[in-house]
């Protein structure tokens, strides 16, 4: 499983509808988000653990965390991109 699939799997784990397929455009914040605020924080904790497995520290604190245009949580794709970016920079 590559890193992006790993991130998508972790997102899927937090979605109640087990048939839902996570794609690049799956929204994680805003009105059409598939996660509520509690699930979003749980996702952050799970990604922190995943990053630890991969040997780096995932920083999910951001001034733009809840911004619909610039947040890393905007979509599943943007979150995976940020995760991979931090892995590249910090490893």
């Amino acid at each position, binding site marked *: 499983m590559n890193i992006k699939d790993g991130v998508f799997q972790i997102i899927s784990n937090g979605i109640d509808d087990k048939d839902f397929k996570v794609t690049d455009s799956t929204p994680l914040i805003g009105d059409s988000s598939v996660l509520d605020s*509690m699930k979003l924080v749980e996702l952050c*904790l799970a990604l922190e653990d995943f990053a630890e497995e991969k040997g780096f520290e995932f920083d999910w604190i951001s001034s733009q965390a809840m911004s619909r245009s610039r947040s890393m949580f905007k979509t599943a794709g943007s979150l995976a991109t940020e995760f991979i970016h931090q892995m590249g920079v910090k490893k």
Partner: protein
Amino acid sequence: MIVVTGSSRGLGLAICERLQSLELDVFGLARNVSNATFPSMSCDVSSYEEVKKVALAIKKDGKKISGLVNAAGIASMNLAVTTPPNISKNIIETNLLGTIFCSQLIAPLMMRNKHGSIINFSTIAVSLGLKGESVYAASKAGVEGFTRSFAREMADFNINVNCIAPGPIDTSLLNGITPKQIHNIVAQQIIPKQFCPDDICDLVELLFDDRSKSLSGQLLQVGGA
């Protein structure tokens, strides 16, 4: 394990000693921990990076965190118009930002267990609007606001967040305040009596007891205001 900030003296130290007497594991944070008689780590709570180091160290250690007491605080009695900017900055950074930094970095350790209690500290000076305490009261009013909102954010994770607002308790924080000034403040409380560190420890003990699980986002004013 319960993390207590400001653990080297005053209320923070009294709380650590009370929790230890109840055979609870305590982890103290203070700028100077050289005389600590319990596990401690040096930390300036107004430094985000230092608090982050503490959170990482605790996580690495694998200790389960069940509570956080944000007791670190400083006071400076002065009129707002004569308070130097560096003092105002220092008060806000230690009292308000220190509470925020510790809460946001230690709380995730509790969120994993879906259990915990966070206790913040304000002051009766906020409710009474005490003269000569404007900046101090402003920093603590911020702590009260943070407590109420953060309590809602933490409720999903079964973590209670409350705030204790003492009147003038006999600790080093009262240095420079005359007995007459203390009497004048105490006289404005609903129960016009000066309480002691043990009374605050009783409330801390109560908030760590499962019997207070229905309380969150609340302000407990010692002596009443």
